[in-house]
C-alpha cells in the first residue's frame, strides 16, 4: 500500500522524468547498478546467510554491471515483492527489474515499461498435499488454493478453472512468506505459482518435501525476463543485448573457463562478440569487450542455468524449453553482428 503512494508522490514531484539515454549515464555516475529482485526465490534471486545475492536473475544483473561498469559486484539489490516491483521501476528507484516477472501484454503496453528478452520459459503449476492422492489439477474441484497477490498467477488461476468449469477458492496473500506458511500449515490443499519456484518451495520450504507433489500440468505460459522503463531506448538495447550475448556465447561454446583462449579464435563471429576484430560495443555506447566482460563475470547462459537451477544446483531443473534453439529448446538470440 505504501509504495504506490510514494510512487504517486514521486510521479508528481519528478516533473522531468528520467530522460532518454540517461540511465546509462546515471549508472556510470554512481558506479552502481540498482537491480530489483525478489524477496527470496532460490535459484532466481535469494540472499544467502551472509547477505550475498544468488540466482539466475541476479546473474543477469551482474552480467550487465560487468558489461557497463566492468565490475560485476557493483550492483545494489532491492528486494521487491510481487506488488511492489513495477512501481519501483516506474518511479526510478531501480534501473532494472530482474525478478521472475512474466511478459504479458498488459504489463508491456500499459505500465510504461519494456520487457527486454526472455531469460526463462516457465509455466504455472500446482503443488499439492500427497495424501489427497490427486494426479491432475482437474481434480481440484472446490479446493482452497494459496496464492500470492500481484502475480499473473492469480489471474491464470481464475482463467484456467473457469475454462474447465471448476470452482476453486483462492486464498490470496500479499507476502510470499505468509502464503507458503499458510499452505504448509495445511490451510490450502494446493499452492500455485511458476513451476520453477514450486521446485524450490517443495524442496526448501516444506517441513517434509515427500508429503507434497508437483502436478504434471502447466496451466499457462510464463516467459520470465528483465524489464526496463520506457523512454530510454539506449538502456533498453544494452540490457537486451547483454542477454543475447550470453545466449550467443553458449551457442559458440564460449565459457567462463575458455574465454581467454576463445579471444584468439579465428572465427569472425566469436571475434565480433568478444570485441577482437570489430568493436560491437560502440554501437551500444559500451567498451568493445562488453560481452567478454559479461561472460567472464557469470559464464554463458548455459552455465548460469546449470549453476543456479540446473544439474549443478539443488533444484535440478531440466533445460527443457530453456535449451538453445538448435538443441530442441526455445532460446534463440538475434545475431551479434
Amino acid at each position: 500500500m505504501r509504495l504506490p503512494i510514494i510512487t504517486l508522490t514521486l510521479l508528481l514531484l519528478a516533473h522531468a522524468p528520467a530522460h532518454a539515454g540517461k540511465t546509462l549515464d546515471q549508472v556510470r555516475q554512481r558506479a552502481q547498478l540498482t537491480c530489483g529482485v525478489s524477496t527470496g526465490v532460490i535459484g532466481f534471486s535469494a540472499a544467502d546467510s551472509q547477505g550475498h545475492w544468488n540466482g539466475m536473475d541476479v546473474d543477469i544483473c551482474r552480467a550487465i554491471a560487468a558489461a557497463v561498469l566492468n565490475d560485476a559486484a557493483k550492483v545494489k539489490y532491492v528486494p521487491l515483492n510481487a506488488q511492489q516491483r513495477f512501481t519501483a521501476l516506474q518511479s526510478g528507484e531501480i534501473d532494472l527489474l530482474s525478478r521472475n516477472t512474466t511478459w504479458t501484454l498488459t504489463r508491456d503496453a500499459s505500465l510504461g515499461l519494456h520487457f527486454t528478452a526472455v531469460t526463462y520459459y516457465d509455466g504455472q503449476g500446482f503443488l499439492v498435499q500427497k495424501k489427497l492422492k490427486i494426479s491432475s489439477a482437474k481434480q481440484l474441484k472446490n479446493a482452497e488454493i494459496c496464492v500470492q497477490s500481484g502475480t499473473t498467477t492469480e489471474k491464470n488461476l481464475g482463467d484456467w478453472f473457469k475454462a474447465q468449469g471448476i470452482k476453486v477458492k483462492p486464498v490470496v496473500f500479499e507476502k510470499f512468506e505468509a502464503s507458503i506458511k499458510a499452505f504448509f500449515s495445511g490451510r490450502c490443499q494446493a499452492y500455485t505459482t511458476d513451476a520453477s519456484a514450486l521446485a524450490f518451495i517443495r524442496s526448501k520450504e516444506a517441513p517434509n518435501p515427500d508429503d507434497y507433489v508437483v502436478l504434471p500440468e502447466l496451466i499457462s505460459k510464463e516467459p520470465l525476463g528483465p524489464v526496463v522503463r520506457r523512454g530510454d531506448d539506449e538502456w533498453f538495447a544494452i540490457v537486451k543485448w547483454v542477454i543475447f550475448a550470453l545466449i550467443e556465447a553458449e551457442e559458440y561454446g564460449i565459457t567462463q573457463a575458455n574465454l581467454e583462449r576463445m579471444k584468439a579464435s579465428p572465427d569472425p563471429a566469436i571475434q565480433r562478440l568478444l570485441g577482437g576484430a570489430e568493436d560491437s560495443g560502440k554501437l551500444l555506447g559500451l567498451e568493445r569487450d562488453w560481452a567478454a566482460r559479461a561472460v567472464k563475470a557469470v559464464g554463458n547462459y548455459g552455465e548460469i542455468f546449470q549453476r543456479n537451477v540446473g544439474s549443478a544446483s539443488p533444484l535440478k531443473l531440466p533445460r527443457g524449453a530453456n535449451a538453445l534453439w538448435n538443441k530442441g529448446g526455445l532460446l534463440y538470440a538475434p545475431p551479434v553482428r
Partner: protein
Amino acid sequence: MPAQRWRNLLVQALIAAGLLALLWWLLDATAANMRERGIRSGFDFLLEPAGFGIGESLLPFDSGDSALWALAAGLANTLRVALPAILISTLLGTLVGLGRLSPNLLLRKLCAAYVEALRNVPLLLQLLAWYFIVTDLLPAASKALQLAPHVFLSKSGLSVPWLGGDGGLIDLPQRGAMNISGGAAMTPEYLALLLGLSLYTAAFVAETVRAGIAAVPRGQSEAALALGLTRLQNFRLVLLPQALRGIIPPLTNQHLSLTKNASLAVAIGYPELVSVANTTLNQTGRAAECITLIMAVYLILSLLTAWLSAWLERRNGRWADHS
C-alpha cells in the same frame, strides 16, 4: 460590520480557490507525468471483467464479473468483518473499562493487564499470530470436527448451513474429497481478523470508557447517593449520561480506526476492499485510479461515521438534558 464580513468572505473564497487550483495542478501534473512515461490511465478498467476469483464473498462473485463488482464484493467483505467487530469491541471494551474502575483489586489488575498487553503490540503482529494459531490448531479438513449436525470446524473454517445453494432452500456443508464445502463458511482468515480487530480495539474502547466515567466529577455521584439514588440508578441516570458526552466522540474514532485497520487483512489472506483493490491494481496497472477509489471509499465511510457520531451526540445531549 459589513466591511469586516466582506473581507472574511473574500479571504475564504481566496483560500478555497487556492486549494482547488492546487488540487487541479496535482491532478494535471500526475496525468501529464503518467502520459509522458507511457503509463495508461482512466477508469475504463472498472467495467472490464475482473478475471480473478475471490475466495469468500458475501456478494455472489465470479471471475467473469466486472472489476467494479469485485471492488463492491471487497467492500461488502470489509463491512462483514468491521460491523460485528465494532459490536464486539464496544461490548468487551465497555466491560473491561468498567472493570478497571471496579472496587475489586484482582479484576482491576486483570483489566489493566488486558489493556496494556493488547494496546502495546502492533495490530499486524497480533493478526498474524491469531491467524497462524487458528490455522495450526484447527484440524485438517479431512478430520473436521463436527460440532452439530452439518456444522464443521476445520482448517477450512467454521461451516454452517445457510440459505440458498445450488438446488433448494438450505445449503448444507458437506465433507468433500478436498475439504468442507457448501453452507456458509467463516474462514480462518475471517475468524482471525474478527478476533484480532475486536480484541485490539476493545483495549482502546476500555480506556475511552474509563476516562469518560472518571471525568465526571465525584461530587455528582456523592450528591446522587446522598439524594437516595441506588448505585445502579446513580450509574444509569447520573454518571452515564454525563460520561457519554466524553465517550462518544473518541469511541467513534475507535470504530473508524477499526474499519480502516481491517485493511491489514491483506497480510492474512482475507479478501476485503484493499486486498481486492490491490489485486485489481496489479492486474490492470491502474495504481493511481485504484488508490483514489480506496481513498474515496474510506473518506465516505469516515464522513458517514462522523455524521452518525454527531447524531448520537445530539440525541444523547437531549437525553441528558431531559433526565
